[in-house]
């Protein structure tokens, strides 16, 4: 029996929004860029680094508490192992197409999700799920409405939501540089992003504050606030490494400070510039398992 999945598995690489890359040759120790320019660099570099990316990631979720002053998982964590292939497409490569396949746990193995994400605010993102027990592909309705009371869909039942994954749409926000200084030994700029009215109505967040490494243009931390300016969620980026000449965080942890649950996304393997054909990122990848396995085998080989 297939476990019903209602979540939008729009698994664009997390790096798109938060784990952003830059080449060290372009470093700015003391940036004089505006907040908007910094976020543009973050977005720009992220697109370079995530195009044609093949990733294996582990999503670990649990309820947490503090023990001896340290954050600890307070229950046996739920673990999902996922493979994801993604390309950038559309005008200026600002849209994305991706397919995510669950490898573990056994009860969800083989469930596939195809997602198309559009940079244009007027175009609704699209998601399809293959339900083997029903023998068909199902289009999933995703949140695009203006209902302020709704929240964006959770991904795989984790603390990550589709909104956390969104990239681009820079014109939908205003940016303010709050502070510059040292954070975890890095030069950072703290930038507050406030959604414009048309975006606010679609967002779960009233504003976000991002700690951006201004040498690497990678976000090290994000604090999310609700529409009453209460902190509700936080992202911590860790294990920052240079992979294929790209700086990135291999461990991203989302803390839901309301429900006291966290999700850690750890990149087990990632490869950029992999040859991913657009015809793989179609519904065929969901229904034709032979085609999918053959393609994934090839991607795994390229990734080695």
């Amino acid at each position, binding site marked *: 029996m297939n476990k019903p999945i209602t979540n939008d598995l729009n698994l664009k690489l997390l790096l798109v929004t938060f784990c952003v890359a830059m080449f060290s040759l372009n470093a700015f120790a003391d940036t004089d860029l505006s907040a908007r320019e910094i976020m543009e660099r973050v977005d720009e570099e992220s697109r370079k680094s995530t195009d044609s990316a093949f990733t294996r990631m582990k999503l670990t979720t649990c309820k947490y508490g503090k023990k001896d002053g*340290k954050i600890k998982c307070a229950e046996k964590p739920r673990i999902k192992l996922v493979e994801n292939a993604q390309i950038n497409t559309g005008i200026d490569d600002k849209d994305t197409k991706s397919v995510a396949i669950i490898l573990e746990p056994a009860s969800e193995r083989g469930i596939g999700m195809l997602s198309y994400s559009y940079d244009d605010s007027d175009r609704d993102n699209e998601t399809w799920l293959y339900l*083997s027990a029903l023998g068909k592909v199902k289009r999933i309705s995703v949140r*695009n409405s203006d209902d302020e009371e709704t*929240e964006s869909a959770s991904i795989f039942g984790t603390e990550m939501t589709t909104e956390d994954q969104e990239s681009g749409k820079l014109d939908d926000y205003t940016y303010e540089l709050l502070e510059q200084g040292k954070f975890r030994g890095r030069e950072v700029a703290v930038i507050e992003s406030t959604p414009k009215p048309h975006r606010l109505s679609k967002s779960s967040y009233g504003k976000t504050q991002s700690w951006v490494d201004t040498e690497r243009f990678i976000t090290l931390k994000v604090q999310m606030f609700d529409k009453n300016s209460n902190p509700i969620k936080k992202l*911590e980026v860790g294990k920052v490494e240079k992979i294929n000449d790209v700086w990135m965080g291999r461990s991203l942890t989302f803390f839901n400070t309301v*429900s006291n649950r966290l999700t*850690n996304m750890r990149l087990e393997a990632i490869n950029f510039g992999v040859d991913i054909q657009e015809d793989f990122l179609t519904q065929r990848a969901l229904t034709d398992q032979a085609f999918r396995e053959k393609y994934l085998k090839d991607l795994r080989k390229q990734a080695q």
Partner: protein
Amino acid sequence: MFNSLLRQVIFVIFGFIFLLNVNADDSFFDDDTVFDESGGEFDEWSDDSDVFGEDADIEKKTLSWLDLGVTQKWGFNPASDYSTTEERTEITLGTSGSVSDSGYGEVELKATQYWPSDSNYSTEKNDLEVEKAFLQFSFDDWSTKIGKYTIGWGELEGGALDVVNPSGGLTDPSMLPQWFLSATRYFDNRDLSFFYNTNPKISKSKLLVLKNDTYDEFGMRYGISSEGSDMAFYLGQLVPNDALINLTDGQVYATPYQLIGFGVNKAFNDYLLKFDVAYKNNIQQNRTGQFIKVDRLDWDLAFDIQNDDRQWLISINSQYLLDFADDYLTPSILGVGVSTKRNSMSYMASVSDKFGDSDWKWGLSNVISSNNDLNLSSATLDWDINDQWQASFSGTYIDAKDNRAFAALDDYQRVNLEIKYQY
């Protein structure tokens, strides 16, 4: 004696696995862990922060290629002092993987043990069947698939076009896989698929004999996907999933009918609109003293609404007889003819959600079928205990009109409990 022993052995194994799991869990629930309000800063956060410890490691399976599932099911009838109506143990063994460079296969076997209090026990004490088994090969733009699996047609489950695979029955909507040979040709945003089935599965009462030989069934689907919408055209000759009793000779028949259909979905903001329509030719129909074939137009319209974890499904379904006479009859469950209505309408509404951020999920649904001849309400409570264990509790109640086709189901009550382990 043997059954009793077997039951004890299964319960011991089941209990042992459960015990192992509970013991394993104990180490993860630490009483010393304090659930502080954690809205403040986590300044201590660093790359060395070890939130999960060794718990974050995926358990290495002894037989990594083997998928094992054990399900224990109980059913009780509240209307009869909660007497047991269902008590069975299901064990599934399965595996999947690549076959050569361009192939993929899956196989799953299911063994069922019916215990003496199970209503099925009098006719069948145990059962072993191939639940699923298929090989799929992919070459260029073509894909072929042979074996036992499920083919889903149409947008709405149980709708006008969802006619290829039979379901488990009125109170069990799960689809039953069948043996098929199918092929699909993929284009850019379109696909054309065919299927052929030489031995269609037909649901019928075990007390009745199927009069006709089985017929082959085959069909074609042409699907088109575009931004914000998917659509498909259907054509086929199908055998009814449920055999129909001929009220004149008392035997049951399942003769093929022809279908032309169209299904489409369209996303609007939070909801998904689904529509199916099908013209069906040569549908079996009883009328006074005769067993005839008629034409029927079926359609359904549904809204699938997703709002955070809450999901609504609202649907309306119609079966309209294009040929009609006042002496048309519909057999009741007990085999008595009642008058047929030209347009049979059904309505369904369901909602499901999680309890906050917990591992508990609830669902409610109501089905009004055949112009209110039957009203089925159900409630479910699912507990996703961990990655291996799930438990489900459900209740069903049916209110049926007297002297109509479903009268025998009036005041039907069931409470079901299911515990599932997957490894």
